């Protein structure tokens, strides 16, 4: 394995727009909103940015191709801007581009932006779109809930979990995230709900009901990264450092290899998690990781991801969840900001939004939802695609020495 980039890049500024149905904003104004917060946080002039990455998931449905929309919106100073698209893992991949530029020495200061303007489609949920000319001939263009719902049946069968137990654990995931989102002024959904509401909601894709699904949102989030040395020059005595970034892309094994992947977990997440822990020097993630932001596009996704990140034992996450292990006041909070479920899910922005929350929490700047025990090491997990074919991206950030 490569040496990795632990502690070679620091985050000096982050910004995040309010997420939600931003009827009167477009991608450009959302990016400006996030960037204004970010550049003020960094305390630098725009002219110091050497390179930028722009992450957008559904470019055809909003800003169009290339890095030009970011360069134009922010009037960046004649620098290279790279457009990134990697399904819902786009935000983290945008961050990865900027971080790698700094880690390599090619840039001193780099910007990662993620944005999505989804509420111009005319309906809820993600836009239906082509997945390529070959796929469109033999693939299933199912909905996102339809794709992710398919984890449930094989998981139940393999681990001998009853329909009711699984449904209740999934419901707990959503109840917890709604409670957390209620404390987040930037969150799309800010209403606490009870478990009965979740259990009795209309079915979207069996067994996922309405409250097992995150909505989609408009929003933007961004980060300015630099070297730890420059971060200290900028007055950051204890900067938030990147401990690891790992991204794994399905190569078709899950999709095509009969009898291989059994449908109960995310192969890519397990691979990425193992590498991320190795890169960050984490040996006991259940005890060492203080905070989790994961890709809870659906409750069942969060549930099995707890196992794929090696926090819960395989087949046991549903019990940890029901035990409150991942609640805001539990052992390891998961989605303390409300997660995709309630903070919202503007596709290209989500990975950066997760890092934003971890960045705030590590600095004790998370306001009403601040975890009191002084978190040192926080993980974000950003997933794109479907269980059977996806992109899984993990970023661990932490304080010096963590």
């Amino acid at each position, binding site marked *: 394995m490569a040496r990795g980039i632990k502690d070679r890049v620091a985050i000096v500024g982050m910004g995040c727009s309010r997420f939600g149905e931003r009827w009167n904003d477009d991608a450009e104004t959302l990016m400006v909103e996030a960037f204004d917060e970010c550049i003020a946080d960094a305390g630098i002039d725009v002219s110091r940015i050497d390179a930028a990455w722009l992450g957008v998931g559904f470019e055809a449905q909003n800003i169009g191709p290339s890095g030009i929309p970011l360069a134009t919106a922010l009037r960046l100073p004649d620098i290279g801007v790279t457009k990134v698209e990697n399904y819902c893992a786009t935000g983290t991949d945008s961050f990865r581009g900027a971080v790698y530029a700094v880690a390599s020495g090619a840039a001193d200061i780099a910007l990662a932006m993620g944005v999505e303007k989804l509420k111009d*489609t*005319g*309906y809820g*949920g993600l836009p*239906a*779109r*082509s997945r390529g*000319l*070959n796929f*469109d*001939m*033999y*693939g*299933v*263009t*199912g*909905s*996102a*809930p*339809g*794709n992710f*719902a*398919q*984890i*449930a*049946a*094989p998981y*139940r*069968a393999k681990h001998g979990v009853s329909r009711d137990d699984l449904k209740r654990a999934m419901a707990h995931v959503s109840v917890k995230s709604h409670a957390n989102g209620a404390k987040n002024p930037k969150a799309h959904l800010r209403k606490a709900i009870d478990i009965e509401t979740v259990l009795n909601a209309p*079915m*979207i*894709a*069996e067994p*996922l009901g309405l409250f097992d699904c995150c909505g989609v949102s408009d929003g933007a989030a961004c980060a300015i990264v630099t070297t730890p040395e420059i971060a200290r020059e900028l007055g950051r005595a204890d900067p938030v450092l990147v401990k690891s970034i790992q991204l794994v892309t399905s*190569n*078709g*094994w899950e*999709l*095509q*290899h*009969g*009898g*291989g992947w*059994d*449908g109960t977990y995310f192969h890519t997440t397990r691979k990425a998690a193992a590498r991320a822990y190795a890169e960050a020097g984490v040996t006991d993630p259940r005890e060492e990781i203080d905070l989790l932001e994961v890709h809870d596009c659906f409750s069942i996704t969060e549930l099995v991801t707890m196992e794929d990140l090696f926090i819960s034992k395989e087949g046991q996450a549903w019990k940890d969840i029901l035990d409150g292990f991942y609640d805001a006041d539990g052992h390891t909070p998961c989605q303390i900001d409300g997660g995709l479920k309630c903070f919202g899910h503007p596709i290209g922005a989500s990975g950066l939004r997760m890092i934003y929350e971890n960045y705030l929490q590590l600095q004790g700047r998370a306001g009403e939802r601040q975890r009191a025990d002084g978190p040192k090491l926080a993980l974000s997990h950003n997933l794109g695609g479907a*269980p*059977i074919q996806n992109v899984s991206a993990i970023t661990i950030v932490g304080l010096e020495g963590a």
Partner: protein
Amino acid sequence: MSDFGILSCGVYLPRRRLDRSAIYAANRWFAPGLKGLARGHRAIANWDEDAVTMAVEAARACLDGCDRAAVEGLTLASVTHPFADRSNAGIVKEALNLSDGIAALDAGGSMRAATSALRDALEGSRTRLCIGSNLRKARPASEAELIQGDGAAAILIGRGTPIARLVASHSVTVDFVDHFRASGEIFDYQWESRWVREEGHLAILADTVQALLAEARVAAGDIDHVVLPIAPGGTIKAIARKLGLKDGAVVDTLSAEIGDTGVGHSLLLLASALERAAPGERILVAGFGQGADVLLFEATEAIADHRPARPIAACVQDGVVDDNYMRFLFHRGLIGLERGIRAELDQKQPGTTLYRKRTAVLGLVGSRCTVTGTVQFPPSGISVDPNGRNQGTQEDYPLADRTARIVSYTADALGHSPDPPTYYGTLDFDGGGRLVTEFAEVGPDDVEVGRAMRMVFRVKAEDEHRHFTKYFWKAVPLNEGGA
């Protein structure tokens, strides 16, 4: 004796059976006279079936246990071919994974297109698959809507061990317009049924039968099975009386539970007769439409071993009663429901990509690595097998006739579907290979991890802008359809 004749037969009847009383209940206010027809059920194709898909399923049943390499030609007879200018028979050929080196022809233009195709094949010398398949379309509240049914039948003609041989045939062509439909139109225009009975069935058709019997020097009373694809039961009795057919010789027209399947109906009833015929028995098959075709067969000794994988009785019994007349109208495009913006996804099919991937898409041909034995779909240059890196080692591996088992599934109520919720999931084939595809003909009790499924050829989507039908394979419960 000649080794040329009918080698095999197969039928396909869609699973849903629309309750005729539901049709009548919705239309009674407008057409109370339909009451007399409001008994029993009619077979209705699902939204993702058409004359091509039903033809494929009938042909698969027909070719079960046969050497497909022996097929030298294919005729698809229909008056509802999905394409006016693209060989529909050619699509069937691809779905059946037949050799490129065969002839293929669409026959149509008349309700007797299938019997004419059958006659041509029998008078030739090559092994030819003759299929009759129709997706019927009738105006709501018409008699035709109640009388008709959807279905397909396939007869394999050729050299081998025939189960029946042609004894004689006779055709008559006269421009008798009992009904018609102009090119590009959707619905038939029907003339008075009493005239059709008197001058059509009892004159033209009966006379053609008599001419054939005279030529063949066979008495009407010596025919054991008579196929008369005529909907009104009274007309059949009148013909039987006029011709002097023996009691019980007329093959049940399946009007009670299936309906008149149109062009393929003669072949469907011929398949029915072949299931019951004993060696040496005579079978007479008639087709009617702007004249008539009449064919006389004699069952051979081999008929004793004729055991179809999906007998007609089983196909009839495997139906599911459906009283959702609104859904039927929607699926036939007879009412426009609000489908929402999600349904606007462009389904444009580039000709180039379909041609490159035709065996995978239309034939469900996967591949098998000759080094590791790993089966995969679709084929690729580099094998999916993680154990070793093998490139250019894959050979064709047809998957359509293999049983598959559910790995995962869902019932998706969000994505657009003409028949929500959309069931789909991941399947592992017995013997290797994995496929994510839609499930057809399933409800909540039909899907569970490990459940056995079989593949069927269906419409995947319609390009509504350019009017192109996209086909692919879906999974149905293994036992559906009597298999």
